């Protein structure tokens, strides 16, 4: 089973188109104004999907079985709260907090309409017929009731390709996730049909995930060593998105960041972004004496820049070890500006030669302290494909990690 960027591009269009139809139908049904938010293709391991469900509160979902051009399951999952809010809009019932018969059937109806929206969108893009079973209402606080009995659900270590879409509503928050679990054979047929180049083995995608894992671990370790704040990797995800979606998902607030370009196989860009409060706390934790400067003066700027520089080396070393290569990076560029503005120059540069990007998205956090660091690694697409093709999957396990902290003294 092989895939390439054009396949993923088509999948992305499917997701986008499907989200558009689903949003339109939701508006039609509820009268609430909606807008399609960020759409992503997500590579996730079975255990991460399960963890995501275990972390969350009660969820409700609506699931349908697909046959035809895509075989498998499509599941729309809402936060329980969100589902109740939609039901309230529909039924004009004041603040119910139970899923009685009426609420259940209303949720099922909404979920089904959204599932059908997605599926019709995919069918349009694929120019093929996909049949949908009758919808099934599911409720629970773990992954089990949603996916437990589906054979297509990825095993603990299997990497699944998920479609994630968000529909935003004006005034009311209605977030939801959408999962597609295709049958392997059905996916293989689809990939074969859509692929336009030699492509990469699906199994090599595993290398992606190992890269992401190593890079993220290095960042958290470096951060802990340099700041003395206990940090851990909170989210680690590999997304395939249209370039435009990258700045769109960055918070609309002032951010502090450190940016790099890196060169090797692959080459690309690496960004560390902190919210202002985290950046203050981190800089002050790194500096030996109390800082007497307003905002980001010379001392705080140089502390954050130095942290970014060492985290970048750790991150890219992690990758280089997995890929058995060397990756150099540029001197750090400090930025303190409106969030999206820090990212768009990179998007524009990549946009000259590609429409989509793989984004290695990592969030490092600390318990009880302000330490939110988002890491975006965006490799050049051709380089990444080549790097992965060269990848020897068997040696990934043995790759050592090498975090070096000598530069600590200079801070």
């Amino acid at each position: 089973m092989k895939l390439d960027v054009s396949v993923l591009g088509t999948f992305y269009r499917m997701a986008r188109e499907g989200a558009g139809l689903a949003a339109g139908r939701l508006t039609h049904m509820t009268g609430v104004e909606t807008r399609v938010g960020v759409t992503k293709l997500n590579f996730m391991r079975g255990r991460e999907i399960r963890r995501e469900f275990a972390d969350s509160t009660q969820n409700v979902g609506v699931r349908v079985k697909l046959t035809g051009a895509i075989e498998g399951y499509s599941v729309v999952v809402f936060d329980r709260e969100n589902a109740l809010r939609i039901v309230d809009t529909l039924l004009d019932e004041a603040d119910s907090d139970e899923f009685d018969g009426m609420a259940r059937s209303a949720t099922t109806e909404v979920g089904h309409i959204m599932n059908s929206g997605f599926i019709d969108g995919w069918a349009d893009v694929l120019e093929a017929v996909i049949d949908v079973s009758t919808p099934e209402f599911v409720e629970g606080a773990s992954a089990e009731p949603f996916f437990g009995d589906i054979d297509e659900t990825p095993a603990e270590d299997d990497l699944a390709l998920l479609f994630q879409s968000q529909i935003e509503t004006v005034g009311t928050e209605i977030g939801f996730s959408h999962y597609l679990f295709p049958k392997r054979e059905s996916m293989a047929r689809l990939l074969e049909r859509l692929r336009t180049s030699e492509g990469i083995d699906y199994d090599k995608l595993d290398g992606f995930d190992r890269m992401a894992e190593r890079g993220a671990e290095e960042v958290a370790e470096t951060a802990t060593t340099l700041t003395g704040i206990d940090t851990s990797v909170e989210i680690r995800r590999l997304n395939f998105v249209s370039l435009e979606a990258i700045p769109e998902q960055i918070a609309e607030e002032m951010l502090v960041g450190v940016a790099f370009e890196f060169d090797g196989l692959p080459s690309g860009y690496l960004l560390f972004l902190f919210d202002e409060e985290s950046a203050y706390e981190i800089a002050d934790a790194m500096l030996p004496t109390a800082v007497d400067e307003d905002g980001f003066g010379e001392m705080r700027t140089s502390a954050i820049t130095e942290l970014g520089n060492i985290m970048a080396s750790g991150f890219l070393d992690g990758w280089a070890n997995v890929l058995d290569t060397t990756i150099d990076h540029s001197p750090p560029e400090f930025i303190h500006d409106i969030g999206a503005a820090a990212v768009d120059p990179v998007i524009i540069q990549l946009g000259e030669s590609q429409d989509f990007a793989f984004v290695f998205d990592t969030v490092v956090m600390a318990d009880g302290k302000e330490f939110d660091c988002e890491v975006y690694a965006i490799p050049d697409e051709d380089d990444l494909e080549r790097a992965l093709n060269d990848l020897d999957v068997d040696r990934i396990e043995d790759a050592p990690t090498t975090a070096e902290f000598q530069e600590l003294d200079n801070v």
Partner: protein
Amino acid sequence: MKTYGSEPGAPQSVQVGISELAVSDGNDTLRSYGLGSCLAIALYDLESEIGGLAHTMLPDGDSADNSDVKPGKYADTAIRALLRRMVERGASYTTVEAKLAGGSDMFEFESFGDGVGERNVAAARAELEKLGVPIVAEDVGGDYGRTVEFTPESGTLLVKTASSEENEVTEL
């Protein structure tokens, strides 16, 4: 930019995301947030109070495959698409004016060459000149980000930056 189910009524603020463009009239504002090297192009016709805003990302759409489906992505095709939609809505081509904001260059990376922001500004100026649309004001370049808010009725383009200690607002 696609919004589903918008109703006409009270003045609205529509967000114009990266690679998108939108046309509106009266005091419904159009807003683009966090422009770095991207360029905001505002066109308006004061007589009909019709105007549009594009949040462009790249200079040259004529040589790209997908500029027909995503005209807002490129400076040249965005300008033509805005003009066409404004005229369709009742604006008069000959009285349209333009304002530009954005196109800064915040990183000095080797791969960026002369600067990605500068290329966008140059492309927009060239296309507007070719079409005979005067640029009446601009706030471009530098090494900082901008957020813009555009009102077609008055042709006002508010530019907020974060470059100084206090958030500055410039009215173009």
